[in-house]
């Protein structure tokens, strides 16, 4: 399979996971630990994770609920966070549905947000305003921006749609590259660096409110089917730990406090709920389809 520029959309292997985990251990978290050993929580760009207000409120909510310091850990790619999570260096992480289905046998779901009444979201194909398009077919020959090789909405869905057309990103697009963030995909398309891109619908919706100058330079070409919203997951082997279980409880109980409701409002979520692995069956299905076509 031709390799998009700037990324390695290959399957995670055990060896790669261990190597990435070792590298990630040397990294610096968002917040240094205090005297007590902190709960380490991994963040990925499934939400606007770089937002300072979000980081402060989210960490505050967890710390209040768990009565323990919380360290938010961020890395450039999903792959790096997954390596940390799978190697046991994180108590839990907010990951995408695609890596979840890849490691579902080792992961347990803690909570998933309810967005606009359901714990689901869509992938959007967006294009620059100067590039009129009404369907995926119109994007042929574009420079296309993906979010992350392990992102469902920012890569897998578009790759699946192309596979159904008998195409691959390399055969369909003139050029592709990864931006390692849904917001970055929209930035790239808005600036004209990419003619079109694949991004998470939730991030697009929030950006339309808080950074309309970005989304106004683009337009939505098409919206995908509904998929399970990126979940908060933990290693199944750590589910007996009170801190890990406490994270799920803290998130599902956010609507019970003012601070929690403010956090939910900030994220535009209704609440967090617990779901089963079947919630991501559709992602698993398209993932298998893509693998078979490769």
């Amino acid at each position, binding site marked *: 399979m031709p390799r998009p520029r*700037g990324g390695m959309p290959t399957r995670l292997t055990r060896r790669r996971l261990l190597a990435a985990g070792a590298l990630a251990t040397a990294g610096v978290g968002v917040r240094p630990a205090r005297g007590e050993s902190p709960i380490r929580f991994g963040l990925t760009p499934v939400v606007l994770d770089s937002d300072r207000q979000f980081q402060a409120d989210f960490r505050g909510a967890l710390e209040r609920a768990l009565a323990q310091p919380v360290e938010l850990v961020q890395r450039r790619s999903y792959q790096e966070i997954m390596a940390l999570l799978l190697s046991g260096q994180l108590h839990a992480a907010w990951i995408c549905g695609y890596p979840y289905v890849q490691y579902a046998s080792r992961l347990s779901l803690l909570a998933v947000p309810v967005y606009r009444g359901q714990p689901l979201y869509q992938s959007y194909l967006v294009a620059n305003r100067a590039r009129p398009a009404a369907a995926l077919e119109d994007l042929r020959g574009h420079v296309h*921006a993906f979010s992350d090789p392990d992102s469902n909405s920012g890569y897998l869905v578009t790759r699946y749609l192309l596979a159904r057309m008998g195409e691959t990103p390399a055969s369909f697009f003139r050029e592709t*590259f990864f931006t390692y963030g849904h917001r970055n995909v929209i930035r*790239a398309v808005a600036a*004209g*660096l*990419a003619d079109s891109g694949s991004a998470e619908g939730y991030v697009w919706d929030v950006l339309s409110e808080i950074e309309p100058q970005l989304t106004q330079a683009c337009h939505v070409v098409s919206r995908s089917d509904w998929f399970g919203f990126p979940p908060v997951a933990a290693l199944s082997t750590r589910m007996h730990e009170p801190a890990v279980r406490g994270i799920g409880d803290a998130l599902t109980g956010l609507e019970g406090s003012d601070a929690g409701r403010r956090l939910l409002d900030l994220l535009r979520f209704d609440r967090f709920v617990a779901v089963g692995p079947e919630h991501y069956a559709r992602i698993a299905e398209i993932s298998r389809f893509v693998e078979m076509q490769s």
Partner: protein
Amino acid sequence: MTASRLRRLRLSVTVPVVVAGLMAAVGTAASVSVLERLRGNQQAELQRLIDGIGGSLSAALGAHVAQHDVWSTYDLIDSVMAGQQQLPPSFVMAIDDSGLILASSRPLDFPVGTAPPADVVGRLALPDIALDDTEAVVGRLIPMVQDGRQVGQLAIAFNTGPFVAERREVLATLIAVNAALTLAMAGLGYAVVCRMVAPAAGFLRRIEDAVGDDLRPVASTDIAAAPREFADLYRRFNAVVAAAREREHLADQLAREEKAALMGRLAAAMAHEVNNPLGGLLNAVDTLDRHGARSDVRDEGIAILRRGLTGIRDVVVGMLVAWRRDDGGAWLTAAAIDDLKALIGPQARRKALGVDWRNGLDRPLALPAGTVRQVALNLLINAANAAPVGGTVSLDCALDGPDLVIAVGDDGPGLPAAWQRFLADAGTSPALPDPGALGLWTVRALVGREGGRIAAEVSTAGTVVTVRFAAREEIRHDAA
């Protein structure tokens, strides 16, 4: 403005004009120097920007370009561009090792995965960065090296528009400041020169008054109050005034003596004219006494007596005319002009001159008869002196509108040029070409006093001196 025109201008204008010119020249030279210095500084600043931004970016982007990481390359370029608010590059472009654009600050103009425009790359490959007066895009191609291997090139370019605009702004400011300074200095120069030449203006008025025969010395109080240079000038002027007055007095005296001499010569001529025929007349009387019974002798004797007596009468008439007292404000009549014919008669006869006399004066004129007659007589005497034996002297007296025009001519060798200039120059007091010849000096003085004009025309046929008097007012007939 030519140098001759500049010299003719008033000093109070010339000096400010020269000051303004010098200021403009100095201002222009200074402005050119300032602009060249500014251009050099801008060029150095541009070079520093290119080296600084381009150098750090090429180093930072090496790893991303080596990995063909479009987004990271763009993100870094974008953040650097955002930090260059004051003078951002026109564009920054990362070119990979295959010569294609990996990312640029202007993705719409330089799309990902395309070859950079050849003219842009060619322009950036030029060895020197030169700022001229037209807006342009200049920059550099900087190699990007990663792990000792060139992985691509960084193209960085700046629009010279802000530099050109800054120079234009500075130029406009220089022009405005220089113009204001030039005007201020010219105004100051005008004021200072006016103050400096004020005594000269007063002096000039005195000179102008002197042209109208009102030559007055500068008062001692004015000399004391004047600057030292002008005090010296005033003292010298007073000396000139004193000398001129003395010369005028002397000339008047000489004129009177000349007139007396003229009358003496006239009396001698008269005596000669009377005495010569007297002997013939007495002989004729004796002949008549002895042979008067003979008709032929009687007739001849009577004829001799008539001619002789007629000649004596002419001489007596001439003398009467010559000694007629100046009638002051009496009006000029045709007879007063015709009297002159008798005065010039003896001299004309002596040189056997023909007298061509035309008197067109048909009415009295409000002009001093004595002055006009003296002018005409002097011109006639001068003409008779100049005319050769057997030659011709002419007088043409005519009215030209309200003016009286008297033209006196002779067929002599021609009035010398010095005398022509002497007669024609009414505004100054030139030197007398021949100190002994006061007739024409008298003419010039009298005509000038009456506000008349003199013109001398010399040709191969001789000389015609024309005098023009303006009658002061129309004479009423009842007063005549």
